[in-house]
């Protein structure tokens, strides 16, 4: 039984990394305001959201499998408090931290109509921290550390995310018509 849990834990972990990489790429795609291979903008936005929710499903499976697997030696608070674990505490801690950030991002996104755009956006930027944590966690912890296929998958994910981020930083990233930036005039801001 523990073997099943161990394999499920590793497998779901890898799937989560792949999904999170897709989520980041889609998030950047959504930000661009461009349609993607025939998909209208709202579809890109929905795909980003659905991939994220799917990633949540897999990360929960990953965490639960490992929690019930005695080999991982997880106590309940290790699931949210990073770096307190017994098995490879640093690498595992990165994963826990990543999970915390993911939870914050997902919850604020589901509640964004209640908390407002600013609060939502500030937390959402943590995605750029969350993804590297997931990547490093996958590379450092787990019994597949060093395995060629894990390196291959991780490299592919990293390549996708780096490419997306690089695209994000190009000047003509936005697919919107040329228009003026909306910025409140300084004289109106300093009203005291």
């Amino acid at each position, binding site marked *: 039984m523990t073997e099943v849990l161990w394999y499920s834990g590793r497998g779901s972990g890898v799937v989560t990394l792949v999904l999170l990489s897709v989520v980041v790429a889609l998030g950047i795609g959504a930000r661009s305001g461009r349609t993607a291979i025939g998909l209208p903008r709202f579809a890109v936005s929905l795909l980003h959201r659905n991939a994220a929710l799917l990633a949540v499903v897999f990360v929960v499976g990953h965490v639960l499998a490992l929690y019930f697997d005695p080999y991982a030696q997880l106590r309940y608070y290790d699931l949210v408090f990073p770096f307190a674990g017994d098995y490879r505490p640093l690498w595992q801690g990165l994963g826990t931290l990543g999970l915390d950030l993911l939870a914050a991002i997902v919850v604020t996104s589901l509640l964004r109509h209640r908390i407002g755009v600013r609060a939502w956006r500030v937390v959402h930027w943590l995605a750029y921290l969350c993804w590297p944590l997931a990547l490093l966690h996958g590379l450092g912890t787990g019994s597949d550390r060093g395995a060629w296929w894990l390196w291959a998958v991780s490299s592919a994910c990293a390549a996708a995310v780096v490419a997306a981020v690089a695209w994000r930083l190009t000047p003509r990233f936005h697919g919107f018509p040329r228009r*003026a930036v909306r910025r409140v005039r300084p004289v109106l801001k300093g009203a005291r």
Partner: protein
Amino acid sequence: MTGVAAAAAVQRRVLAGNRDGRLDSHLARHGRLPALDAGEVIDLARDAGLTGRGGAGFPMWRKLAAVAEAGRPAVVIANAAEGEPASGKDKALLSYQPNLILDGLQLAARATGARAAHLYGPAASFAALRCLLAGRRDAVPVRLHAAPDAFVSGEESAVVAAVSGRGAVPADKLIRITRAGVGGAPTLVQNVETLAHLALIARHGVGWFRAAGSPDEPGTFLATVSGAVAAPGVVEAGYGVPLGELLAAAGGPAGELAAILVGGYHGGWVPADPALPVSRAGLAPFGASPGAGVVVALPVGSCGLAETARIAGYLAGESAGQCGPCVNGLPRLAETLADLTGAPDLRGVPEPAGLPGMARVAARRSRPELVAEVERLAGLVAGRGACRHPDGTVRLVRSALRTFEAEVAAHLAGHCLATEARR
């Protein structure tokens, strides 16, 4: 002079008296402010038919009632932020009759059950106001807030934002400020001139107020007359006053006039007809209204089209910068109007995003399609913004195309009627 003509004549009511701004002169002339309860103040405002003098002309009693009915402690704000460059009446009133304004503010506070009162206006007037406030014994203490020197800073929701400690920019109108404004409290924002009129109505009564103006538009209003007149300044008259009398009170026209701008930069151009009554009814056929009482006389040698293009450029630059259609549409509208005028000088018109450099220069010559493009852009920006800045600009531009139709035709043909008239 018949009764009707006298009612609509140039006369001094708000501007009457000493005008030194002192409390003792004010009390000597006007006496103490009568003690009225909330219902009495609202009834007075309603029966007198007092409408806002800040430009919108909304019935004051409705605003008072809306804020009073909210049932929570309210906030009242006297708005002296005169963002309109061609208007000087609020500054004049702050200087000449601050006590009437402050009396009106106390009455408004009484009517709405307000516990907090503010005055929002130019910082230059604050030293004198602070002295005055120290000497008065107002029931509700008044706090002063400096207004930035910008066109939109006097907009109602911008006033609320500024008094709340944020930037003086208009806000989305989903929730009316009469329901929730400063600190979530029901808020009344009223132009200082309106408050001054209220202070006089409280002393002299409804009949006295209605003896001026017309039955549908009672009372007097302050007009800032400028442009081609001998003695530009602030004039008071009853609604329905003939345009010629307003100009005469400002020293008379300095030469033949081509047209008059009424209602300010968000107003409209009307023909220079001295008999034209300055009232809602009288100006409506020209798509104009008295607004905040701005009257600018355009002499025959000045091109109305070019002047409108200049104003449109100014208004484009005065956008708060929040709303896409305004930030993009107004500069484009101003530039198209300038192209229509054939004006090579676009200094001051903000660079609109769109045409790259060379194409912009080539498009500069006046073409018939430009009239349709101006109309298209006008229809595109109107109604799409958090405030009425785009709508006011569109109103001015549309009235210019109407009033200066002949000038438009001349410019399309490559010449200018105004320039020719100068020779």
